[in-house]
C-alpha cells in the first residue's frame, strides 16, 4: 500500500487551490468596482423600509447591478417569509 502511495501523487496541488480562490475573489471584486457607490446604502435603506411591514433579514435581500453599453439594470430580489 505504501509503495502504491509513493507512486500516486497524494500531495495537494496548492497552485490549483490558489487559482480557484483568486478567480472567485477577483471576479467578485471587479463587479464591486463597477457598481455605483450608493448601492450598499440603498440596500440598507430598502431593508429598513421592508422591515416595517414584514420580518426579513439582511440575507433575504439581494441587489444586483449590471451594466452594458445600452442600459443599466438594478435587480432587487426579496425573499418573503413563508407564512404571512
Amino acid at each position, binding site marked *: 500500500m505504501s509503495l502504491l502511495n509513493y507512486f500516486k501523487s497524494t*500531495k495537494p496541488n*496548492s*497552485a*490549483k487551490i490558489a487559482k480557484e480562490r*483568486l478567480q472567485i475573489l*477577483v471576479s467578485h*471584486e*471587479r463587479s464591486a*468596482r463597477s457598481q455605483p457607490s450608493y448601492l450598499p446604502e440603498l440596500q440598507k435603506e430598502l431593508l429598513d423600509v421592508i422591515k416595517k411591514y414584514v420580518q426579513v433579514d439582511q440575507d433575504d435581500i439581494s441587489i444586483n447591478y449590471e451594466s452594458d453599453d445600452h442600459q443599466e439594470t438594478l435587480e432587487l430580489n426579496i425573499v418573503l417569509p413563508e407564512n404571512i
Partner: protein
Amino acid sequence: MSRIIVVTSGKGGVGKTTTSAAMAMGFAKKGHKTAVIDFDVGLRNLDLILGCERRVVYDFVNIINGEATLNQALIKDKRCDKLFILPASQTRDKDALTLEGVGKVLNELKETFDYIICDSPAGIERGAHLAMYFADDAFIVTNPEVSSVRDSDRMLGILSSKSKRAENNETPIKEYLLLSRYNPKRVKLGEMLSVDDVQEILSLHLLGVIPESQAVLNASNSGIPVILDEASDAGQAYADIVNRYLGEDVPQRFINEEKKGLFGRLFKG
C-alpha cells in the same frame, strides 16, 4: 515622442525598484535617453539599487518646491550617459508631492527624454497615485502568489479609473504584466501559480517572466542594476523584456525548467 511608464504593483517587495532600475538601464543602453524617478518619498531606495546613493544632492521635492532646477537634481549615471536618476526626498513626508508639481516636472522631462520611468511606492496612497496618474504605459510587477495577484488586480482598477487618461476619456493606459520571482520547478510541482494561471486571472499582456534569481540580491548588494549582469538569468530576462517592449519579436524564456544535461547533472546536485 516620449513615453511615461509607471512601474507599479500595489503590493510591496515584489520587485518594482529592481524592475525600474533594470528597465531604465536597458532603455538607456539601447541609446534612448531615459529618466527614472523615485516616487517613494521618505523611503527612497532607487538610488541605492542604481549605486548612486552618495551622489544625491537635490531631490524630487526640491524641484517641486523650486529649491533646485531639474538639471541640478538629475544624477547622470556613470556607466551609461543616457541614464538619469531623480531621487525621492528622504526627509520630507509624502504630502510634499503635489499633482501640479509632479505634472510640471514630467512635462519638463518630456521635452528632452525618450522614456520617463516612474518607480511607484507600494500601496495605493498619494505617492502611488501620483506615480501612475500621468502614465502612458504601466508595467504591473506581479509575483505568482495570491496576495500579489489580488493587489495587481486592484491596481488595474485604479489605473482604469483614477489616471489622467481615464479622467479625460483618452486612450487608456497600456498595461503590461511582468511576472517576477518565478520558479518553474515549483510550478511544475503544482506549488506555484503558472504564467498561464496569472494571465488568465488578470487578463494582461505578458511582457516577460523574470525567474527567481540569486543575481538580483548580488546586484542590489553592489548597486548594479541586474540587467548589467548579462550572464545571469534575471539579467537576460530583463534584456528580453526591454527588447520586447521596444517592438522586437523575442520568444518567451524562463517559463519552463531548464533541462540539465548529463554533464550538468553530474556536477551539480
